């Protein structure tokens, strides 16, 4: 339908300027996704440095200071460079097509929000070459330790500001698009779940990112302009940074994970050939998770010595999050129940994502129990927990989404056999890396140490082997994506037998401009 109307729009500039000046949501989506893959390679390499050093006790390849730089940058890069841009990329590609809009609401700003990212990422990496190297203080940047750091810390602060501006602009754009550009008749409660979760995520970003910006700005003035926000000797409070940081940090977890919930909610019904179970409760669960995420932050800091009443408050609110999260998991399982299931690669990623994310969710419930957390806190149990949440939740959803929508983007089917190889290698690598880390943490291994006591050796070796398998598997992913872009079996417009939604009504590959005239919604 749209093809004939938009055929003369197909021509677009070629070469570098196409990408530099583009205001097309599909081009920008592509840029975001490639940027995120590049950052994944950098951040993943740092993870391999960490895992290689932890292969055995003693110091083998890096010095403790450099090890700490790796843990800090790995965290920052994976959160701000991999997961967030990847989801914004998916939003750019999909949201206009899913709501029947011709493009994003603010296309020029869209260009700018992407092009802030490469310099911001570069600055983050350049901190490695500053005198004293990158900060050695973890991605959480706690003072007073960050006050001691060299110039690399200032690079990171500036970079975080730029990444934050990019995210805020991106979320303004997404909110404006969703609220204003839906096809006539597509009411809010008819929107696909991916659009819903992104709408909620965008509001979370708007609320949380400025708080982070404030926190790092206070660090900057403490470092250079003699303020004492976080310096007890000057009347400040080092714990205040943690409160402010986690007021951003916990919503950030849902910023990383809600769009993943949206992806699962698109993929699972498609391959179950059955509508999503409990659409309305999904929407309300998403909103209650978002709301609760602003009143649980201090569960990251039970050990700082809060009053008992405070600890109880944060324990109860945190436990409450299990309710709406549980609703989501039950709904996904109920969607599969008595469906007509098939297991193409996207579906495998969605099922594994739900399954493994739930492990992370349940270990999160364990961590919410304040007294028990005194044993878990700052150990490898926490490292295992958040990788089960962020890798299994967000990253598996991102990969699944790429397989799911890639035929629409490129017009070609990916190689299903290779896709399944990629899936199983990722599963083996991921679980081998992170499952043993639960045991390491329970047995008493602190996180963020370059060297460890002898009783932790074996599980660390499992973990290191797993990490290398996991990393190599992602090179296969790169190969599959390039192969699919270059050619392959032609994809139909619908692509998947059970696919529902506006994006499947346009041809594959989706024309450069879609929905120049809005589609009719029954």
């Amino acid at each position: 339908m749209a093809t004939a109307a938009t055929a003369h729009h197909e021509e677009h500039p070629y070469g570098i300027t196409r990408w530099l000046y583009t205001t097309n949501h599909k081009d920008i989506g592509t840029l975001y996704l490639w940027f995120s893959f590049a950052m994944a390679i950098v951040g993943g390499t740092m993870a391999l440095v960490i895992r290689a050093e932890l292969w055995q006790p003693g110091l083998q390849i890096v010095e403790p200071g450099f090890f700490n730089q790796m843990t800090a940058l790995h965290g920052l890069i994976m959160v701000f460079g991999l997961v967030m841009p990847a989801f914004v990329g998916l939003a750019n590609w999909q949201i206009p097509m899913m709501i029947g809009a011709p493009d994003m609401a603010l296309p020029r700003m869209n260009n700018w929000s992407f092009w802030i990212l490469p310099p911001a990422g570069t600055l983050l990496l350049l901190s490695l070459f500053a005198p004293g190297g990158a900060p050695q203080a973890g991605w959480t940047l706690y003072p007073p330790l960050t006050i001691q750091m060299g110039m690399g810390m200032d690079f990171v602060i500036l970079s975080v500001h730029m990444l934050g501006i990019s995210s805020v602009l991106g979320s303004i754009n997404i909110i404006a698009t969703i609220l204003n550009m839906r096809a006539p008749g597509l009411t809010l409660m008819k929107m696909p779940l991916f659009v819903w979760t992104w709408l909620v995520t965008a509001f979370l970003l708007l609320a949380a990112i400025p708080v982070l910006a404030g926190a790092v700005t206070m660090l900057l003035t403490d470092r250079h302009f003699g303020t004492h926000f976080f310096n007890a000797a000057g009347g400040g409070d080092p714990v205040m940074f943690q409160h402010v940081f986690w007021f951003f940090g916990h919503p950030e977890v849902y910023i990383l994970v809600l769009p993943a919930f949206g992806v699962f909610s698109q993929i699972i019904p498609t391959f179950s050939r059955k509508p999503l179970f409990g659409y309305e409760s999904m929407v309300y669960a998403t909103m209650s998770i978002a709301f609760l995420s602003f009143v649980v932050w201090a569960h990251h800091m039970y050990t700082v010595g809060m009053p008992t009443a405070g600890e109880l408050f944060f324990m109860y609110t945190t436990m409450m999050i299990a309710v709406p999260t549980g609703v989501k998991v039950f709904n996904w399982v109920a969607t599969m129940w008595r469906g007509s299931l098939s297991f193409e690669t996207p579906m495998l990623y969605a099922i594994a994502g739900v399954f493994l994310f739930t492990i992370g969710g349940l270990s999160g419930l364990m961590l919410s129990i304040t007294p028990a957390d005194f044993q878990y806190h700052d150990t490898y149990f926490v490292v295992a927990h958040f990788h089960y949440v962020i890798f299994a939740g967000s990253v598996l959803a991102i990969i699944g989404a790429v397989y799911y929508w890639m035929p629409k983007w490129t017009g070609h089917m990916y190689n299903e056999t290779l896709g399944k190889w990629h899936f199983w290698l990722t599963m083996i690598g991921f679980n081998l890396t992170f499952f043993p880390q639960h045991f390491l943490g329970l047995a008493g291994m602190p996180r963020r140490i370059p060297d460890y006591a002898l009783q932790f050796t074996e599980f660390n070796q499992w973990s290191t082997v797993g990490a290398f398998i996991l990393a190599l598997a992602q090179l296969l992913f790169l190969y599959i994506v390039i192969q699919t872009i270059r050619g392959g079996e032609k994809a139909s417009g619908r692509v998947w037998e059970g696919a529902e939604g506006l994006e499947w009504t346009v041809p594959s590959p989706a024309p450069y401009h879609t929905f120049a005239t809005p589609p009719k919604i029954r």
Partner: protein
Amino acid sequence: MAKWFIRTTRAAVAIVAAVGMLLIPTIAAAEYGFDFQRPVTEIAHDLLWLHHLIFIICVIIFVGVFGVMFYSLAAHRKSRGHKAATFHESTRLEVVWTIIPFFILVGMAYPSTTTLLKMDDVTNSDLTVKITGHQWKWQYEYLDQDVSFFSVLATPQAQIHNEAKKDPHYLLEVDKPLVLPVGKKVRFLVTGADVIHAWWVPQLGLKKDAIPGFINEIWARIDEPGTYRGQCAELCGKDHGYMPIVVQAVSDEEFKTWIGEQKKLKVAAAAAAERSWSKEELIEHGKEIYNKTCVACHQANGKGVPGVFPAIAGSKIATGPVDGHLNIVMNGKPGTAMQAFAGQLNDVDLAAVVSYERNAFGNNTGDVVQPSQVKALRK
């Protein structure tokens, strides 16, 4: 479709088996810790029990939910000709699975709350120890007994750099453990000197942040004599992984004897500061202090870490006036990692380490600093 699935599943099983074969020898040879270390206080017992309770609840929920999912994955396949149903909501079911988890949570919250209240009750203690985290060592002060000392990593650098065989308690060994009596309620006041650390001994069930400018209170009553090891748990910079904690729990009589010995040592140290020391004595003792206290930053060769920790070899301070050198060692340099050592080292130690630094690493100034000089500067 189904053929691909079976084929890839087979391949995956083969890979798992292959990886498993590789790992079996390590599994057989190793002692694995899967769970908390054996608790030795009432609180640590409670925590282990609580941990098991919530863990088992989580496992039951997990197995229940995914049992249903895996049944569906097996039974409701398109390849088996299963036709999709069309239902997409059930208010009754949705209400049920919102409310049941809520009651499970209440069931978990109750024992958690009572345990927390018990942990936070620091009243009626028999003994108070102040714990201060420093980069990268712990300081223990027995406030009622007027005894205080620093406790640093005792694992030799050679073991860390793989030049010597590692001891069984590699990285978990200190020069002077924290000695505590069993059966007494010990209250700890935890604070930090420079950055945030966290004092953690798993077997005591204690972990608390050591924050500059704040004092946190925790307590323990240790059930049985023994040696209990832990580590700093909050990232505190370069040597975060190298500031272990060793608690030695002894009977009350042994504890009293130990306190008596510590007081005698203090008197002996004061006497040693009164006499004049030979250059050789000072340099020998100074080297010992340097390797314990200074080496983490300034390195064994005195060259420091460029851009991070300044060198002592050929430095203006270590080859310039003696008073300037003593001043920086005793009072530190604000805004940098250089701490004030006046409170950490006694007169003999300070005199010795400064003498050593002025004659080692090619600094050959020939200067000798006597404990009496340090003592004079303290006033």
